[in-house]
């Protein structure tokens, strides 16, 4: 089954994402910020990364830039969770190499639909 790295500094969001995805049968690894995620991504490959944008230590945009630079993540779908309805963050994300985004607030069904879409 596909493995997913879920990155969010908020425990409740992280749990919700992780619980939803695990419930759908995915393997989920959680990370609490960009630094944590990057170190986990270096030790294991993932089929998909879902990351929050605003996080301490390393934010989501920087994480995406770092991940995209890793050979193992060259083509991996990288999705950002963002509350920014403006284009600012999306554009920054795209520039950094993000595949797409999921706009908060979202519910588990929407999350799953997007994930399944990306993972085919």
């Amino acid at each position, binding site marked *: 089954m596909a493995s997913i790295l879920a990155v969010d500094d908020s425990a409740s969001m992280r749990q919700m994402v992780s619980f939803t995805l695990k419930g759908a049968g995915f393997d989920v690894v959680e990370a609490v910020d960009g630094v944590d995620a990057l170190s986990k991504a270096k030790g294991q490959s993932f089929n998909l990364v879902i990351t929050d944008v605003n996080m301490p230590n390393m934010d989501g945009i920087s994480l995406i830039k770092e991940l995209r630079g890793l050979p193992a993540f060259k*083509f991996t779908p990288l999705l950002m969770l963002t509350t920014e*309805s403006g284009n600012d963050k999306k554009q920054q994300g795209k520039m950094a190499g993000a595949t797409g985004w999921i706009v*908060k607030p979202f519910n588990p069904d929407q999350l799953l639909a997007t994930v399944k879409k990306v993972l085919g």
Partner: protein
Amino acid sequence: MSIDMAQFHQVFFEESFEGLDIMESGLLNMDPGTVDDEEINSIFRAAHSIKGGSGTFGFNDISSFTHIMETLLDEMRDGRRPVTPEAVDALLRSVDVLRDMLAATSDDGEVDEERVQEQKAELEQILNGKPGEVATDVGAADAAAQPVGGVEVRPIGWHIVFRPLPHMLRTGNDPLRIIRELAELGDLKSAGDISALPALSNYEPEDSYLSWDLHLHGDVEKQAIDDIFDWVEDDCELIIMPLLPEGEPEVAMVSAAAVPAVSEPEVPVVQAAPPPVERRSKKDRRSSKDRRTNNRRQSGGSSGGGSIRVEISKIDALINMVGELVITQSMLSMLGEDFEMDRLERLNDGLAQLERHTRELQESVMQVRMLPISFTFSRFPRLVHDLSSKLGKKIELKMTGESTEVDKTVIEKIGDPLVHLVRNSLDHGIEMPEERLAAGKPETGTINLSASHKGGNIVIEIRDDGQGLNRDKIEEKAIEKGIIDEDHNLSDQQIYELIFAAGFSTADVVSDVSGRGVGMDVVRKNINELGGGIEIESDPGKGSAIIIRLPLTLAILDGQTVTVADETYIVPLVSIIESIQVKTDQINRVAGKGETFKLRDEFLPILRLHELFGIENPKASSLEEGLLVVVEGDGRHCGLFVDDLLGQQQVVIKSLEANYQRVDGISGATILGDGSVALILDIPGLLRLAAETGADSAAKLTA
């Protein structure tokens, strides 16, 4: 897929309160005029998280309030807005308001709407001087871009030219995924174009060179197509043209790559209104206990269906205990791998721990099955109201202890017996108003229905201030029905208990209030089946009471293992008062009436279990050799004579009737640690058995 978002609420509240603390201390540290990037970033992040979480978990008021704070913080962070003492103070006050909002939401309390609105207004004032504008745009995405050009004819489909730019694969977007999604919208015909494929020497394997000419037929909104291309609009050349019914010219509508500066459509790929959050008005406010009961009522179902809604805290407690259990188990198995005698103490500690955890786990699991008895009680006010007017009586029903929790099975099974008993009180117990006045009693009779926990039991009482049981009438009837002989030697109490005898009904006229259908014998049987007992109290002219005792849980019982000869029985611990060894001088033989012993000031009959059950060769044949277990059943006490007591243990109750039949004096069976079966004694049943078989005269002596 339905996921109960409520399970994440507690974590959300916890982290939000932490976030508020971070915001508060950050704001207090802030020097007006200067901006410390890290400081304001962490304040912003905290607000941002609260906003995102509250939106996701459906707390829209919190989300919209936090949104304004976030906007203000964002502008301060970017340097677009100076950090003024006024702004900092306003933010600090907002933190307080937000904390109250979170606390109220978390505890189902009430939000001070007025204060929230005032604070919102203050923030908005700082933000733009025009209150009310900012708060509205949370979650409400701007309307999607309308099609350019005034095409009035509805298209029959779309012609899409999709040419990924070479780098598209490196954004993690797969053109085939996009085409697959398009195909889900309607009937898709695609033609690949490989004309852009370079000569092999120039070929970059990681670049995309293919493009597609797609015809999507069907009643598809352009928005749906835009949504699909949302993530890649900068990574491809895209032309979307409506396919018009014949005769209409094709009009190019949007080419994202060609017109990159066109206003970015606000296209939320994933967006939906968060689930509505329940709001409480002042009128709704009740004590938390009531509300809990009420919530349970709504969710627990009215018909005793197959599911039960359980509080998260109960589940969390279970998970914790399972975790503990796993740790203890692995500790024990490690210990067992190379065990040596000097580790015996650790083994014993481990086993003690295991026992404690198992017991806690068991209690928690049982807790899951517990529901308040108000489920059952709630029908009685209406019943009493209707029946008393029918009977021309004045009756007040008082209920206490409705929140007492009982096993779900009890809720399901106790209803009918209780209805019968309450009807009896109404019909036979409470007198007509004029009779009551003549007897010097208040015109209005009272029925008290109460539930409470007493020891290991649930006690339900139906007590009325009516005329009490008519001893003579019961006696007459019992003789008439051949239940007792005319020259019986029964006490008043024993006469009263005859109403539980099979086929006994005292109503002179079978009224449609009681007296029909089930009798008291069935009531007692139902209660016995629940592992409980029923007692009756009567005070002529003053009233009567029915007292029902039920075990806390039905699946498991705390038992005392006793042995007689080579047989093992379980005595429910709740029935045991004490165990004693008697001396000869404490025993009295009553001619023809068996044995009694004196315990403190009371003479108690002795039941020899081996005689009662026909057990051969008991180890203890004389009373001094064995033990007397002083037990209580249906309000009567006696000494149960057994060979020996073994340990106490919790046993899982199994039915004997499932495959066999009811056995007098036995309430069920259980499977012991070695896989063998042990029978569980039914103490009230044993007392009756003794009275019936005449093996002992317990019943006569307990009068």
